[in-house]
């Protein structure tokens, strides 16, 4: 008998998705899909608005990564006023970078401590009651407090430069609207009122040590779980080093061969196309020259560590070389190594924040530059979850006529579907039954990509957890709800 198993929505991802696994009459997996079924509307919503509103409006896409959307939009809008990244003042660039590193730091910390750590601490077979922040807090109080404190530190960085932690405004067309005061800077350095940046680096190092030790103890599972070949995409600077704020696009295939050779972000349309599927509102980006079947790429921490030649801060670079030495591979295609890569980036961000806080140009007064206006602007940054593209076109009055957003989770669409297929084939197929532990492994595979479905679909809302079971005739024979 053919059955369809539905997980709806996937837990502990932002927004709502739905997984269906189709079994044939022998209980073998016939097919599986990670559906995104919410309607995308933001790209249309923003049309007709003046361009200078975009960096503010796009923050409403998501409460988790508003800073990433703000900065990607700002980079695009800079171009509409004739300012390329190299033309921005040093003060404006460094303030934006500080905000960005604060965002990535707090986002990665949240993901590790509260979304990934339940899987790591309690195991993928743990009962659903344990796979949450409350269980982490009860069983490891120190870890929970560190997680909250690191998250708060990043949020305070954002608040210091943008005025508030969610939907704050730093960037304006051609620059920033305020600098950092000495008192605001010292707040993060002196340790009098909050744990200081040196403590954040110390804790970040401890997290990297923890995850390395965890991999040593659980190597077989972490190496093999949801491992599959794919391309990897990320941004690097002119020396090939990791750069989360600005640079060129680089992609490699699963063997490490270059498939996109440090291309200017302005040219993304020449190299990328987006496929669609009837069963999902989320698009499927791929490299044109490689083709739809093999041209898709993972993005995010693992992809970035795979594509870069180095990390431009000493402690994180040491962590990267340890990571590569551990695996002994040129390219890492194991999904679960995303967590280790994410923690290397946490350390990198902490180091970058410290360097910036000691840079007097943060207090400079050269805030806004102006150039000759244009009618097209493209801004790309490396958001916590991966490469984020904002593309705007305007009419002669500066009103937005076209908006195209390719968010990180969209790039990872194929990767998440492939990860779900891996679990379906290797964990569920031929078992004859579906347990909570099996279903959680589907979610573990998806969670490693830290998907933000609010961003990907530009929709919001609440839904209960819903599981549906269909027989081979398509009749609903069982359903479960979890609020």
């Amino acid at each position: 008998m053919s059955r369809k198993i539905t997980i709806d929505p996937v837990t502990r991802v932002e927004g709502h998705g739905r997984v269906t696994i189709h079994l044939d009459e022998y209980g073998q997996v016939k097919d599986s899909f990670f559906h995104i079924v919410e309607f995308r509307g933001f790209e249309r919503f923003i049309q007709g608005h003046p361009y200078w509103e975009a960096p503010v409006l796009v923050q409403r896409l998501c409460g988790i990564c508003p800073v990433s959307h703000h900065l990607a939009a700002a980079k695009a809008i800079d171009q509409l006023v004739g300012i390329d990244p190299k033309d921005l003042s040093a003060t404006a660039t460094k303030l934006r970078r500080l905000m960005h590193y604060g965002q990535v730091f707090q986002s990665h910390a949240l993901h590790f401590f509260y979304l990934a750590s339940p899987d790591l601490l309690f195991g993928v077979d743990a009962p659903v009651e344990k796979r949450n922040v409350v269980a982490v807090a009860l069983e490891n109080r120190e870890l929970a407090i560190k997680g909250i404190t690191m998250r708060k530190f990043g949020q305070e960085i954002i608040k210091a430069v943008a005025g508030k932690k969610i939907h704050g405004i730093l960037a304006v067309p051609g620059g920033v609207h305020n600098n950092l005061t000495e008192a605001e800077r010292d707040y993060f350095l002196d340790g009098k009122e909050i744990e200081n940046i040196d403590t954040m680096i110390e804790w970040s190092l401890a997290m990297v040590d923890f995850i390395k030790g965890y991999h040593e103890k659980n190597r077989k599972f972490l190496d093999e779980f949801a491992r599959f070949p794919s391309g990897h995409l990320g941004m690097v600077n002119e020396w090939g080093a990791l750069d989360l704020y600005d640079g060129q696009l680089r992609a490699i295939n699963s063997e490490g061969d270059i498939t996109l050779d440090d291309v200017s972000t302005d040219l993304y349309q020449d190299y990328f196309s987006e496929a669609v599927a009837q069963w999902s509102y989320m698009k499927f980006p791929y490299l044109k020259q490689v083709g739809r079947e093999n041209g898709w790429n993972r993005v995010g921490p693992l992809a970035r560590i795979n594509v870069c030649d180095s990390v431009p801060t000493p402690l994180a670079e040491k962590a990267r070389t340890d990571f590569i030495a551990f695996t002994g591979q040129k390219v890492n295609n194991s999904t679960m190594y995303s967590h280790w890569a994410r923690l290397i980036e946490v350390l990198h961000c902490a180091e970058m924040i410290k360097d910036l806080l000691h840079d007097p140009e943060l207090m400079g007064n050269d805030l806004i530059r102006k150039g000759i206006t244009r009618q097209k602007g493209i801004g790309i940054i490396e958001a916590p979850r991966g490469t984020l593209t904002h593309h705007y076109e305007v009419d002669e009055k500066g009103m937005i006529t076209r908006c195209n957003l390719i968010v990180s989770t969209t790039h990872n669409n194929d990767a998440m579907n492939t990860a779900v297929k891996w679990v379906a084939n290797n964990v569920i197929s031929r078992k004859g039954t579906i347990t909570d532990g099996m279903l959680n492994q589907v979610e573990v595979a998806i969670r490693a990509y830290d998907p933000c479905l609010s961003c990907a679909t530009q929709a919001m809302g609440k839904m209960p957890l819903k599981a549906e079971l269909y027989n081979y005739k398509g009749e609903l024979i069982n359903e479960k709800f979890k609020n």
Partner: protein
Amino acid sequence: MKNLRTEKAGTLLVGIGNSGRKDDGLGWKFAGLVSESANSFIDCEYRYQLQVEDVLMTCRYDKIIFVDATHEVLEDGYELKPCRVAPHYYYSSHMQSPETILYLAKELYNKEPDAFTLAITGKQWGLGTSLSPEAERNLQKAWSFFEKELFQHVRITA
């Protein structure tokens, strides 16, 4: 800038929602009314959704009022209820409930402020910055109640 380690007695009102999603902006609108009131003795914060680090914020106050829109059709258009500590959690990841925030405050920081939820009924949830007429009426009803009960220092107790 506020000191994370400093205790701060008083009342905090947290508006939860998204002003870009029509009636989902009710929480923010209400917080705006409170913060703009000349008589306000209440600190106001705005949240798209509650997250774990908000535990630290709640630890600094004696009394917390969480304000959010609701789909539920309430008899008066709004409802104020005590908010009890509870270890439940949402499946949609980063979002935490007021009850869980209070639970973590108690477990991790030994703080247990008096807390309430104020739910206001909304009707429209699409893209847009204006409230529906129904939500606007409910907002005004809730605001009238709040002015009478709190701005005249009538104590609410859990």
